[in-house]
């Protein structure tokens, strides 16, 4: 059981970041995104409505013969969720972290109007919420062949291309 820290993220999504009218007028409409450091100095983003909760020190059961990026199954709210290591997924030569400090619970739907399903991403650092605008859109980075399969879009943030991932594409099938 994950009795460690469990933080719900949806309330925070509506509260932050604060967009001032002046900023919006200056740079156009902005939307919130969860900025996630999936490996040191490497980022992806997720739509805030897909990020659900954050567990600290998740307990994980290994899955024999699982994909190279699999950490295993974690228990959360009477569910067993797949926990994956994004760095190992995106860069196949990387070993997955067996015991990530945090597990970010995300929601997805495999089909339109289908039931919600959940998966989890192992993280070493807490996600941040940032504001992005259309003017920040950029091309996907070229350091993983999986970006075009997983990403909805991409934006420039502090000099780095940050893909926005589709959680359904991420969790609905083996990669």
């Amino acid at each position: 059981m994950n009795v460690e820290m469990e933080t719900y993220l949806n309330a925070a999504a509506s509260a932050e970041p604060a967009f001032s009218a002046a900023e919006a007028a200056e740079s156009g409409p902005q939307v919130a995104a969860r900025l996630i450091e999936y490996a040191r100095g490497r980022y992806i983003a997720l739509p805030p409505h897909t990020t659900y909760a954050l567990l600290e020190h998740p307990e994980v059961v290994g899955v024999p013969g699982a994909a190279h990026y699999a950490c295993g199954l974690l228990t959360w709210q009477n569910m067993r969720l797949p926990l994956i290591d994004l760095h190992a997924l995106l860069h196949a030569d990387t070993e997955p972290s067996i015991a990530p400090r945090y597990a970010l619970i995300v929601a997805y739907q495999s089909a339109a109007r289908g039931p919600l399903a959940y998966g989890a991403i192992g993280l070493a650092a807490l996600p941040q919420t940032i504001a992005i605008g259309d003017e920040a859109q950029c091309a996907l980075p070229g350091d993983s062949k999986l970006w075009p399969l997983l990403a909805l879009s991409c934006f420039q943030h502090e000099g780095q291309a940050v893909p926005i991932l589709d959680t359904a594409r991420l969790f609905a099938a083996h990669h």
Partner: protein
Amino acid sequence: MTANLMSSPKATVRGNYVLLSADSLHLLLPQHEVGAAEYLAGELAASEEPGLLKLRGEESPRRFAVLSAQMTLLPHCPPDRFLFAPLGDENDDLGWCWNELQILIDVELQPQPVPAVLLTPNAPVVQYVEFEGKLAYLCSARQLHTFALAARS
């Protein structure tokens, strides 16, 4: 509605199974695929067959397999693996070593799929059950043989 609830209605299977435990790995095999269990009579040591162990100091042809939590072969036998049983083919003289072996008669199980994102084409387990507070993988003797012995060189 939520797709991966443990308690959501699922198909059930009923039958006789054996719960085999190797540290944190718990496997459920059909009872007819598990031979009679015996206590290990002594310490295990490496044999001339890669990945398999034998009783130290004995000339018996019997070989032993010791699994890790990832269902791969360990090069040694942890002290708390004190049981072994043959699996599958009765002519197979390979003893598989366990911490615990529990026979479950006429038990009803609710298999759940291992999430697709975690599976590979050669995955030895594709379903699990919640049983007495443990997560146990449903498996066949053939799947176990194939996966565990495949990595031997």
